[in-house]
Every structure is written in C-alpha cells, then in structure tokens.
C-alpha cells in the first residue's frame, strides 16, 4: 500500500499520533509530527512510497515545535532522531526542508555498508551515471532535468555504493532545488511537481521536486558506468572532457561522507568504482545541451 492510498485525513491522524512508517530505498523511516507543512509536504512528495507495518525501523524521526515561548514568538521546529537532536532548531516555515536535511544526515551517519558519496545518480539502460560534486556546482539542477528527460533518478544527494559488490543502491527522494533552479525546472518541464518554497534558509530559497513513481518503485541496482564531475559555467557550451583516473579518485574521496570511517574498505571501494567507470569533466550552462550530450553518451557506449 502506498501513501496516496490513504485519504488525507486518515494520513494526517496517523502522522500526528503514532507516526507513519514508509520505505525509502533500502531504509525504513517512521515520521511523527503534527506540523501541517510536514504532513502536507510528505503527502504530496512521498505519495508513491510504500507504507510499512514493520516492527524494526531504521530511522525514528520526530519533528515538533519546542515546548517553550518559541511556540508563539518566531515559532521554531526541532528535528529529533529517536531522542537525539543533531541540529539547532530552525524557523517553523522550514519544517519540511528540515525533514529532508535531517533524513539526509540520518542516512549519512548510519549506512556504513555503503561508500557514501555526495553525488547525484541517474540510470539509463541499467548503467549508472554518477555525478559527485560539492554544493553549488549545479548537480541538483542537472539531476532534476535528467530525471525529467527519461533518465531514472537514483538519488540527487547521496550515492549508495554497496561495499559488497560495487553496485549502486537506489535511494530516490525529492530533489532539492535552490533559488533560480526552482523556476528553471518549472519552466523546463510541465510534468515537474514541486512542493512549497521554504524562504531564506541557510541555502537560500529551497523547494523539492517530486521523484516519479518509477524511480520510487524500481529497486534494481545498476552498475556504475560513468563518473562525471559537473561544473555549471555561465555561457559555456556543454562539454564532456575525459578526466584522469587519479584525479577522479581524489575528486571522489573529497566528495565522500564516510571515507575516514570506512578506512581501508573505502579505499578499495573507491578504487573499484573509479576503475569501473569512464571518467569525465563536464561543464555546461544550458540544460537541453547537457541532456543531449548525456543521451548521446548513453547511446554510443
């Protein structure tokens, strides 16, 4: 049963009482909150996710307003992971984005069966395109556009490379869009479903693009084929240039969340990943050009 099969009223009651459990990629999440934007945000953007009745839950998440004066004066929201608060409270208007960031953090800290890269991943013909990049490189915008152009979204934020076999585990979640990207993606596709905009966050304005039904339900793990370091460059033509493997190795390490935690296992996993993939630098300014180039790449190899 998926979330949209519950009437909103029933969904809301469940989230604000016992919490609702659902599957996100390989993980199970229970979210409890009586904050309206969190409830409606999840109902809109997670409508295709499977509801679980499991007794074992990976992440117990509770978003609530603090029980003090901040309930009325400049109201705030607290993110709580099973009794632990990894972050300071944020303004209440950012509550849904806080859920997304908090869940990212939870996964990044509790998934050491994977080499975790700060990266978008998309798939075509059962082969994975991995885009590791620091914030500000235009990775999410590119990822959003590709996911709206026939590529299957595996993640826009965190690549899960299985230490056991090097395959990429899907973790389809709403794609986080910032500032101008929100309107760029709205203009790019009529099919884009985008949630409410959280204004003035530390990252500027933030809104989330819904992951399509296919991306949420397809749990197959593609093999890595392309490792691409994207850089948005104003006015530039879309260009893919081969990148030296040693350089890509270091670029991957710099975008890894748990390299030092995994130690030797991280070194071996990164080596395998870089050896398996064709490695490229990529600069672009126009999304249509970029997609044309990746489609060609997928078609030719």
């Amino acid at each position, binding site marked *: 049963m998926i979330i949209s099969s519950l009437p909103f009223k029933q969904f809301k009651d469940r989230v604000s009482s016992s919490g609702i459990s659902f599957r996100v990629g390989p993980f199970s999440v229970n979210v409890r909150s009586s904050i309206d934007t969190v409830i409606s945000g999840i109902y809109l953007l997670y409508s295709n996710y499977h509801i679980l009745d499991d007794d*074992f*839950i990976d992440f*117990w998440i509770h978003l609530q307003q603090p029980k003090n004066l901040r309930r009325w004066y400049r109201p705030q929201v607290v993110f709580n992971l*099973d*009794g*632990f608060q990894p972050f300071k409270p944020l303004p209440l208007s950012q509550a849904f984005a806080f859920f997304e960031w908090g869940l990212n953090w939870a996964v990044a800290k509790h998934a050491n*069966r994977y080499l975790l890269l700060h990266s978008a991943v998309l798939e075509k013909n059962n082969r994975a395109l991995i885009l590791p990049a620091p914030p500000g490189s235009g990775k999410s915008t590119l990822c959003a556009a590709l996911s709206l152009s026939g590529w299957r979204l595996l993640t826009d934020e965190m690549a899960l490379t299985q230490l056991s076999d090097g395959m990429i585990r899907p973790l389809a979640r709403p794609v986080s869009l910032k500032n101008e990207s929100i309107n760029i993606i709205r203009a790019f596709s009529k099919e884009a479903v985008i949630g409410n905009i959280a204004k003035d966050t530390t990252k500027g304005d933030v809104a989330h693009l819904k992951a399509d039904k296919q991306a949420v339900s397809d749990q197959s793990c593609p093999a890595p084929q392309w490792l691409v370091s994207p850089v948005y460059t104003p006015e530039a033509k879309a260009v893919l240039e081969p990148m030296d493997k040693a350089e890509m190795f270091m670029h991957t390490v710099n975008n890894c969340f*748990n390299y030092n935690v995994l*130690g030797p296992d991280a070194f071996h996993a990164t080596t395998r990943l870089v050896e398996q993939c064709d490695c490229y630098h990529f600069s672009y300014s126009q999304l249509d050009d970029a997609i044309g180039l990746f489609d060609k790449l997928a078609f030719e190899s």
Partner: protein
Amino acid sequence: MNRQNRIIQVVKNPEIVKTYDLRAFDLLKRQAQAADLLAYLQFLFEQHDLLAELPDKFLEHMETARYYANAQHRAVLWEVDRIEKALSSCDIPVIFLKGAAYQLSQIPFSKTRIFSDIDILVPKQKLESVENALSRNGWSMGKVSAYDQRYYRQWMHEIPPMRHLRRNTVIDVHHTILPETSRLHPDPGQLMSESVKVPDWDNVFVLAPVDMVLHSATHLLHEGEFHHALRDLVDLHEMIKFFSTESIFWQQLYERAKQQQLLRPLYYAILFINKLFGTSIPQWFMQKIEKSRAIFPINSIMTELFLIASTSIHDSCTLPGNTLASWLLYIRGHYLRMPLYLLVPHLLRKSFVSEK
C-alpha cells in the same frame, strides 16, 4: 508499558536474543545507540557465536557502529603516538587513563568502546611543563574564563581540557584521579610508581590492572551525570572478567582499595555490575567489601537511585522517578567533589552565569 532495558538483558545473557522478535531488536538497537554500546554488542554477539541468529537489519546497524569504533581505534593510536612525541621533552612516563588505556592494554572489548577525550596522568609538579609542551605542539585551551581557570586549577584534579587545533581531538591532563577538594584522597604517587609500560611503545604507560578498576569505579561513583554510566558499568564488567583470570587479582584489588581508601566506591561498583549483569564475584570478596557500604537507609536509597539513573538511557526504558533520581545524584556528585561552603556558591554561579 514494558520498560525493560534490553542491553542489560543481553549483557547478562546473550543467548536471550534467540527469543527476540523484530520489535525487541528494534528496541535493543535504539537503546544501544543511545548508550553508545552498539559496537560493543557486535563484539559480544561475535564472542558468543550468535551473529547468525540476528536479523540482517539489526546486523547492518551493528556493522555501522563497528566501523565507527574501528575508525576511532585507529585515531586513538595515532593520538597516543602524537602525545608521546609532544611530551618527550618533559622527562616523565606518559600514563594514559580510561578509554585509551583499555585499548593500549588490549582488553578484548576495548576496540568497541566509544569515547571522546584522551586522558593522561602526570605528576603535579610537571603540570606546567606538560601544558607548555602540548601548547607548542598544537593543543590549545581556547578561551577559559578566569573563574573556570580557578575552578580547575585550585579545586579540580585536572587542568582545563585542551583541543588540538588541526585534529580537533581533546586531551584531559590529570594530576590525580579525584578533585583536590573531595573527601577521599587516593595517592597519585602510588598510581604512577606502579604503572605498567605498554609493550612496543617507548614511553607509554597504563595503570596497573587493580588501579585501572579502582579508577573506573571511583569515577563512576563520583560523577554527577549519567549519560555514560551504563557504558562505564560495561567497562567494569569487561575489565573484571578480563583481569580476574589471574587468581591473585581479587586479593590485590582488596588490598589496594583499602590502602587508597576506595573501598566504598569499589563496593558499589561491584554490587551494581553484579546486580545488572551477573558478573561473577567471589563470595569472600563480596563479604569483605560489603562492610564498607553506607548505613541503612542511605545504602538502599543510593542503590535504587543509581540503578534508575544509570539504566534510563532511552525513552523506551526510562524508569519512573528518573528525573528526580538524576537530579539528586547530580547534587550528590558535586557534593562529593567539594565541601558545601565551596559547592553552594559554585552551583549558584553556574546557574546564573550563562556559558558563552
């Protein structure tokens, strides 16, 4: 509602997991995460050959915790190396305490122990040269208020913690194991003279086994905060299992505790691990140290409060009365550190002057 502490159940009898359903595993995972004991459970189940009995999801979380513990183990050994080098000019044996010492002594469970600071013990007259040597090598106290400086330097058993500017690691430099102002005064000279050199290192030492146990017990009973009390109890349980294979251990432990006036904290520490985990303690030993317990009814109240506060580590196993118990023990912890005429002004100041 069922308020069982699953960690205690499992440490006492690991085989019990064979009867667990997924809900019980979920609670065990959550409680162990809250107590920083999930990596330890992995060690425990491995030792009892029970990993095959566990659901994959639970294993995944334990493996994750174990990776953190292994990474920490690598980092600690590197830190010990850096500290040894930094203090080479001070002409003292570098004695490591607590977590780092358990790892250096290779007590089997120690690789899974999560902790944040490295603790060392140095002679009081060498404090200044140690502090200077650490400063020259990248450690810094940061900004410490004049009040806090005085609090540490006049009353405590350690100087303010120092943080390494690049690695962000924290070192606590102690000159004895209890505050100067506390009622008990174990002799640091004896701890140092009987310390044991760690093989394969030039100048790295740890306390003798009996002193390591006494230090852990004393620390546990003198703390005012209980976030890590369950982990500290597991330390004692594992240390005692490891050291008591030497038949002379119990006699030595008794002698040393008596000499150092630490029989009472030792009694309670032993009582608690025996009650919680069923740690095996020789009967003659128990009878001998039992004489050091507090008088009735303080003895029973103290035991009750301590067991409530140390086991209430997660919402699912928080016992009724925990808030009150924790508060009373917090006051008690401070009361043991310093006499009332110092304590009252100190606590008042701490509650009105906000930390920057």
